[in-house]
């Protein structure tokens, strides 16, 4: 198994020659092979090499394995490399990919920067814990890669605009990762977009819990893991199997529970539910202008108010998830519901867009807008007060403490 140790420092290890090759200038004249294999020319099952999309994966744990399988099923995809800080994940993933292709070619990495420095890779999918997403997405864009990033795409409010800027700067296709936004909520989207509910006044999202600070004690390390790289930009903490577990639980037994790595249930399931709500109500391109904190005998809940007059509630007492309040009888012109492009669900949509350079269904800007709801909610619940949000300036209005929570420092040597 080819394996690489983490690099010292933060240099991306990209030489100017590599950079030129990555971007197809110097490499164009040098890359013509003497012999062209039948595989390269393609056959009835596989497209020619020139039509293939060379893919690598970063963070191949529970969720990453699912994404990897979906990409391996895409016939245009040539999956050549993966990266994970856990040795067991590297071994398992390499075995799976090599078995898929009937060779031993898959390269494995402990350090994502080495994978991103490969000039032959066109696109990467990222399924690390959330505290790594922004750094990896931005660095991938700098290297000219298209990116499929699992949800929740951001950990802080500040990260989103920087990720969008990097994608737009280099014209990269960057897709967020919630397949549920389209696939689970069609039963609501179709009638609302057909005008059957009239103008939508409100929708309720039920999702919980809030993230908590992790203060778990040190445990003996029970696995081969590069702990410093797992923590990455997050605050240092001792190894504990619950701290870094990739379990989908949000009850204190996985990284998804803890604020240094995740927005808790608010972002984890919120990426799906808030994403579905904004799709149903067709406000995917907007952010709310305020979040109103309510503490009532029936429970605490939020009301996100949009400039359009729409309210998205969070955990509104006595209202179920995705309960919609419309204006029956009011005529609203029907609209065509957007669909995935290509075939193979959200992964096929991404691959199609890599080829055509169209914006994917879950374009990073829309994914970021969804995450904003979850982050605003977490901050409002933590501060126990209503907040006004200036979406253009990406800051709270007249609330200094809340503005201090827009971002957080990254552990050295990591920077955005």
């Amino acid at each position, binding site marked *: 198994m080819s394996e690489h140790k983490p690099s010292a420092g933060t240099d991306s290890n990209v030489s100017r020659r590599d*950079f030129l090759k990555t971007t197809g200038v110097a490499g164009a004249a040098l890359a013509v092979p003497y012999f062209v294999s039948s595989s390269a020319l393609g056959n009835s099952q596989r497209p020619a090499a020139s039509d293939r999309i060379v893919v690598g994966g970063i963070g191949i744990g529970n969720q990453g394995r699912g994404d990897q399988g979906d990409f391996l099923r895409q016939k245009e995809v040539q999956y050549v490399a993966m990266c994970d800080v856990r040795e067991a994940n590297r071994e398992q993933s390499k075995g799976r990919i090599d078995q898929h292709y009937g060779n031993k070619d898959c390269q494995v990495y402990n350090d994502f920067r080495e994978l991103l420095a490969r000039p032959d890779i066109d696109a990467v999918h990222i399924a690390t814990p959330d505290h790594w997403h922004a750094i990896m997405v931005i660095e991938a864009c700098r290297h000219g890669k298209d990116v499929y990033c699992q949800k929740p795409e951001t950990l802080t409010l500040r990260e989103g605009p920087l990720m969008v800027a990097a994608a737009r700067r280099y014209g990269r296709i960057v897709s967020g990762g919630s397949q549920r936004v389209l696939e689970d909520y069609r039963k609501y989207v179709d009638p609302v977009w057909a005008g059957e509910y009239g103008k939508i006044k409100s929708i309720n999202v039920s999702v919980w819990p809030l993230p908590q*600070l992790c203060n778990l004690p040190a445990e003996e390390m029970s696995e081969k893991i590069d702990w410093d790289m797992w923590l990455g930009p997050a605050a240092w903490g001792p190894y504990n199997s619950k701290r870094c577990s990739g379990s989908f639980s949000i009850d204190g037994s996985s990284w998804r529970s803890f604020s240094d790595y995740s927005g808790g249930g608010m972002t984890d399931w919120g990426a799906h539910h808030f994403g579905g709500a904004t799709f149903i109500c067709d406000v995917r391109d907007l952010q709310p202008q305020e979040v109103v904190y309510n503490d009532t005998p029936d429970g605490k809940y939020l009301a996100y108010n949009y400039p359009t007059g729409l309210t998205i509630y969070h955990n509104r007492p006595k209202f179920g998830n995705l309960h919609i309040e419309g204006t029956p009888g009011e005529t609203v012109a029907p609209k065509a519901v957007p669909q995935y492009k290509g075939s193979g669900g959200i992964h096929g949509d991404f691959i199609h867009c890599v080829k055509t350079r169209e914006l994917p269904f879950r374009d990073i800007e829309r994914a970021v807008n969804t995450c904003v709801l979850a982050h605003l909610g977490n901050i409002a619940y933590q501060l126990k007060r209503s907040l006004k949000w200036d979406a253009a300036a990406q800051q709270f209005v007249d609330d200094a403490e809340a503005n201090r929570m827009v971002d957080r420092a990254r552990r050295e040597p990591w920077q955005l």
Partner: protein
Amino acid sequence: MLDQAFVALQKFNWGTSLNEVAGIEDAVVTAHTDADLRKDLEQRLIAVLSTDVSADAKGYVCRKLAIVGSPAAVPALGGLLTQEDNAHLARQALERIPGPEAAAALKDALPRLSGKLKIGVIGSLGARREAGAIGTLAGLLGDSDRAVARAATLALAAIGGAEAAQVLTGALRASTGDKLPLIIDALLSCAESLLANHKRTEAAAIYKSFCGDEHPRLVRLAANRGLLACNSQQT
């Protein structure tokens, strides 16, 4: 409850239940509308930093000072910048405390630091978008520690604007090899900040400088996209 929380903080370490310090959590929220409580809370948090509590406890205190800290907390926080166990969370507070004191503490610490701790402080100056640090950061672009030079490049990109762009343009001319892509990226980022501030001419000048065939395709693509954005803003 606040008194009990500060007592618990003295023995706070990995594994301590956060319920034991919940009084501090509550005070941080209440202090928003209670100036006296805020001042008292801050003073008590600052005092903890000069005791021999665990690094975990100091980290917890830094997280709270990131929300309620004022320039009064800067000396205590600045003292942690040389300590590997606490430098990161001290920076979390210093990145957020407004005013020249926090910026000065970060800048003044740089000569005493090296390696990762220096990189962290450079990153924090960038995160604060500290225009007053551009000269200092310019001097680090040629640092013999390539990671430090890289951090300074990223920090200048985060600060953005004409002055940072001028510094980066000079660095671009003096650089070769694998430093180039990140400097170019930083300049493109500066161009975006200039354009966002309606300084189209300055932004367009940066973009035009990267449109030539001598530049990689990815860079030319970015430059041409930027020029289009400049033109669309003009109309």
